[in-house]
């Protein structure tokens, strides 16, 4: 259930947003979508895998938080236990909507920040205010607006990424076979990762093409992120 409203001082003077992290706030997610522009920050904490969108079969990049649906191994005492939080996690309960500026030309729209009033973070008694007493946006809201702009930029930069990865055969399917300390086993077979042998056999022209589009660094960041898989397994195994 979502109920998006365009954020305005008149409507949302009293609205407040909880900023802790907990299952009750919708944070029990196995993964969140991430983008090449974000890979360098993501790789410091989370393994990056590629998965297919179930509705379209198109590839998207995902930062992994657990090994089962709804399992987030970073949630601890109402905090998110990592030094970097993915953009698509931090953005809740906001969204960019497009508002028409001229009824005569419906394709003329401008981006406006909206809030999901049904989101469990949204309430009128606890957490960050959206507006100051004088009706000006709070620092919290300003930062949210900045974040949504970054997400938009990341989406645009991401548009060609799948096509380019497939063009150079840089994606391969992967079977993860994990045995946890308690003896239980898990096989994940619908993940994809960067095909390193294909990458290392690319010639100068291909590498320059990737670099020009800003995709070369993220590809290596994705590879580096795989070393975060072991720590994630350790998180599940516990002390």
């Amino acid at each position, binding site marked *: 259930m979502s109920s998006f409203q365009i954020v305005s001082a008149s409507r949302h003077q009293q609205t407040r947003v909880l900023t802790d992290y907990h299952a009750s706030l919708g944070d029990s997610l196995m993964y969140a979508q991430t983008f090449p522009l974000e890979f360098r920050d993501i790789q410091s904490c989370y393994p990056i895998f590629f998965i*297919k*969108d*179930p*509705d*379209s*079969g*198109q*590839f998207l990049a995902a930062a992994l938080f657990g090994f089962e649906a709804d399992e987030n191994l970073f949630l601890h005492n109402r905090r998110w236990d990592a030094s970097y939080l993915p953009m698509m996690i931090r953005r809740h309960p906001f969204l960019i909507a497009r508002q028409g500026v001229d009824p005569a030309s419906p394709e003329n729209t401008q981006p406006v920040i909206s809030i999901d009033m049904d989101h469990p973070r949204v309430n009128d008694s606890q957490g960050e205010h959206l507006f100051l007493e004088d009706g000006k946006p709070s620092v919290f809201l300003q930062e949210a607006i900045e974040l949504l702009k970054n997400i938009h930029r990341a989406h645009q930069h991401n548009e060609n990424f799948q096509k380019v990865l*497939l063009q150079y055969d840089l*994606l*391969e*399917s992967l079977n993860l076979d994990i045995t946890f300390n308690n003896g239980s086993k898990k096989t994940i077979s*619908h993940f*994809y990762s960067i095909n390193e042998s294909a990458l290392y056999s690319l010639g100068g022209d291909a590498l320059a093409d990737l670099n020009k589009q800003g995709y070369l660094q993220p590809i290596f960041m994705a590879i580096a992120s795989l070393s975060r898989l072991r720590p994630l397994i350790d998180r599940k195994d516990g002390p």
Partner: protein
Amino acid sequence: MNDPITKIVIVGGGSAGWLTAGIVAAEHRISNTTRSEGFRLTLIESPNISTIGVGEGTWPSMRNTLEKIGISETDFLKNCDASFKQGTYFKDWTTGTGDAYAHPFTVPHRYADINLAPHWLAHSERPGFAEAVCPQTHLFSERLAPKRITTPEYAFNVNYGYHLNATKLAALLKRHCIDVLGVEHIEATVTEVNASENGDIESISTDRTTPISGDLFIDCTGSRALLLGKFYAIPLQQKSHILFNNSALATQVAYPEEDAPIESCTLSTAQQAGWIWDIGLSNRRGIGHVYSSGHTSEDEASVDLINHIESLTTASYAKQVSLRKLTFEPGFRQKFWHKNCVAIGMSAGFIEPLEASALVLVELSAAMIAEQLPARRSIMDIVAKRFNEKFLFRWERIIDFLKLHYLLNKKKHLPYWSDNLLGSSVPDSLKEAIELWRYNSPWHYDTRQVDDLFPSASFQYVLYGMGFNTAPSHTERKTEQEAAKLATSLFQENAERAEQLKSSLPSNRELINKIKTFGLQKI
């Protein structure tokens, strides 16, 4: 005699010619045509002669064939109006009063280890055989697809072949063969077949080129069989005394709306003297009536077909459809490979499309030639002998299997159907098999060759779909109790798997639409 075989000439386009070209060229690298040595593949196609244009169902083998040729499944589905075929659904073949059964493309559950047929037969209260032993059958009534948008090209969740527009398939293959694989295309009409001293074909004369020479000639000229039939006079072995159908009336029927459901299998509905096929492509349905001119007239057959179309659409729509008449001689050549000429496609033979066997025979023929391409003329006769043995056996098996569909009918009041029960119309091999099956359900011992055309499971689906009874074992088998327990759990597993598939697979229409928008991924 020691000359290497390096130049292959295919005479005739259509799906037979272009599939053969694609299969051979995908296996053997074609040299630059400016050089005089090296492997060369030429296809001569007449711009005047139209192809048969109705061969529209395939077996699952077509997935591997297209992948090997190098065609993207997304391109194929989009360009050939194709949809997914998961088997055939037979209506009114047994009693004609609403009976129906399925022949799906998946063998019964755990077929390698256990024969479920006797255990199914042991229950008096039971679902249909194909429903009890195969989860795929349950997808048919809801027109569900055999895979998802996230399943890679040519991979499956349940096994499938295709329904396709054969004319468009030929066009797609032609472009690929010429542009990517290096096949030489000559648009000309054959005027003369020229013999060499030893009786081989030396060259083909046409109306616009100098004679085209070759080492091996592949006859894909359809029922005209210009090379094998006309030039070499290899006769057709007639089988019309076994399979009576020799005529067809074909048409195309529009869907009521763009997003109408697409069937998951070929529908085959028995008629008074034949049967009606219904093949659901993505943009329209191909519907036709295959019948015996010895048992009904063209007028009556038309009426039956129009009535059938009316039941699917409206009276006014049915009245305005235009029917195309085709006739054929059911049978196959005495041999397929003679000297340096081999026939593939309708030139090799033809029978009614009851189990969509025409295209798979093209695939298998071309694959054998590609794999076993004789290195020298001195080897060719040996390969030809093996080819003939293998394909004569396969044709006999097809005849037997198709006849089985007719042999189990209970419509003695109709001349066509009772004539089908006459002993003179039943091959001895089938008579023997049926006798045996009264006591032993077909299973692994019924597979006579490693690469048999029909798995023994196919016989099971037809036998038990049509109410045939195999008696229980005449002795008490020591494994009986354990097997019965396993069977019960497998029937249960089958039902669960069916539910799981039904809830997780999209409809054919939904999947085809998504493929048109997003395409299928290669990985």
